């Protein structure tokens, strides 16, 4: 509907855009503001800190409770993402390019897992992991993370792989490229965006998890940041840990903001790649 852009239409749209932006950002700005407040002013209810301080950040980075959790979060999320993307790429390639019996079943099963209520797995996994010694270890969290992010990886990747013009590989070979060269210089660059996209989505999922993190860990050995934050206590029993929690929440939000800023298009493409062509 190409309607002429009148100034009033422009004003209307900018107002709507601003509403959307405020809606999305206010909770993030609020927790950031809390993280910069001093202990004395944290309960003043002001949206903008009256007195700014970095003490909360200094405080959390001085305790192993937080730094260990941060290392756990980063390590577990990175390993789970790498494995899920590698395994997912293999399966997605098969789904997009090969014909084999059981393909529909595989697609259906991974969809079912995507809808699976995680709480249903908590009690058996808790028992099984305690029995085989995986409870409160990195692999104990990595395994369920891989499982629940595989559907995500498989769907995103197979959607991307379907769009790759695979004939180019053949063309490159005809022009004298070796299979390895054809793969490296033709297929890899074409597939890379899809792989990066699914890696980001999987990382966000693993980074986000809370239920498994509080159920399958019990110590600093494997507790991730979301679980650690929920366990934060104030430095004395009379003190609420508000500032520390806010600072820790901001720290784990930073990677998400960076992803969104640098890979915005990739993420949107991942979210909608298939829907458009339905």
């Amino acid at each position: 509907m190409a309607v002429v852009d009148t100034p009033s239409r422009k004003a209307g749209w900018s107002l709507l855009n601003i509403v959307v932006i405020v809606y999305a950002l206010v909770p993030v700005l609020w927790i950031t503001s809390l993280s910069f407040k001093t202990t004395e002013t944290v309960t003043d209810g002001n949206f903008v800190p009256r007195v700014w301080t970095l003490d909360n950040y200094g405080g959390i980075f001085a305790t192993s409770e937080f730094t260990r959790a941060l290392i756990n979060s980063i390590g577990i999320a990175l390993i789970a993402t790498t494995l899920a993307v590698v395994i997912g790429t293999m399966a997605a390639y098969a789904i997009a390019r090969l014909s084999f019996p059981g393909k529909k079943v595989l697609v259906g099963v991974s969809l079912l897992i995507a809808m699976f209520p995680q709480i249903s797995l908590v009690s058996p996994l808790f028992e099984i992991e305690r029995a085989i010694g995986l409870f409160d270890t990195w692999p104990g969290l990595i395994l369920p993370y891989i499982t629940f992010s595989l559907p995500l990886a498989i769907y995103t990747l197979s959607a991307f792989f379907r769009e790759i013009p695979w004939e180019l590989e053949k063309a490159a070979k005809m022009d004298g490229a070796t299979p390895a060269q054809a793969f490296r210089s033709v297929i890899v660059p074409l597939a890379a965006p899809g792989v990066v996209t699914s890696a980001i989505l999987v990382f966000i999922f693993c980074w986000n998890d809370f239920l498994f993190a509080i159920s399958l860990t019990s110590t600093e050995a494997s507790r991730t940041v979301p679980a650690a934050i929920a366990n934060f206590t104030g430095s004395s029993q009379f003190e609420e840990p508000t500032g520390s929690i806010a600072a820790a929440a901001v720290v784990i939000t930073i990677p998400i903001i960076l992803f969104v800023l640098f890979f915005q298009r990739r993420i949107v493409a991942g979210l909608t790649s298939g829907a458009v062509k339905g």
Partner: protein
Amino acid sequence: MTATEAPQRSADRPAPDTGARRRSEGARAERRLAAMLCAPAVIVMVAVTAYPIGYAVWLSLLRYDLRFPDEKQFVGLGNYAAVLTDQYWWSAFLVTMAITVISVAIELALGLALALIMHRTIFGRGTVRTVVLIPYGIVTVAAAFSWQYAWTPDTGYLANLLPEGTAPLTEQLPALAIVVLAEVWKTTPFMAPLLLAGLALVPDDLLKAAQVDGAGPWQRLTRIILPMMKPAILVALLFRTLDAFRVFDNIYVLTRGNNGTGSVSILGYNNLFGAFNLGIGSAISILIFISVALIAFLFIKLFGAAAPGSDVGAAEGRR
């Protein structure tokens, strides 16, 4: 959760010409390769879901209290009878259904509005699309703490707008409203791209023609845009409903499930890690599993939402 749209354009589409004619050898080699490529994914998914869910069924038939491990005993469906005749289960179930229905309904309306804004806005489209991804990506627990402090008397900028002496998070209905608010804020950005993708399928020409024929904006929305978006809407609804039904993180942080705000997931968690009752906890887990399966079944049968693995754009999602 998280979300992805994939085009099951046709899961069973014949493979690209390559192997079609050289039947036996080529096809067999292709199957072998496919089996090898899919094996790791299948093994992990089965080992971490199918086997434990079977084990959960077994646990749910036992009297198994971690504080008294020696009194482990087979009790048949006793745990289920205990849960289903208990008012805690039914109130948690009711709370979960209420949160699910209300938040998904609001998300649909808001997501549609957001999709229309992102689709039609004449400038700043990139900025808007970038910014709305932040709620989608942010760690639920971090966002939940932001909401919690916002509504805590004295500390919060929102609580201070309320009359003196009210603590919304300590009363059932206000607390549930805040849970819904936190859920809606977080997951509408998941809804919007899915709906936006459906919106892109509506041809502009059709809308223009309708406009020429005298259809107003509202008529164009309800008579043309929404019917054409139906498949996209159903897929988004199905995924968000199942996702909302397992609501846990927000409630855990906001109220811990106190004052009648606990969802079924919270009830299951509390039985496992508060009461250390693996038998009852597992029975609750299985009942949640059955509820989710029923919801998915109803969606697919009643509304004709795209069945898993079928041709229509199959969405995949999570917060």
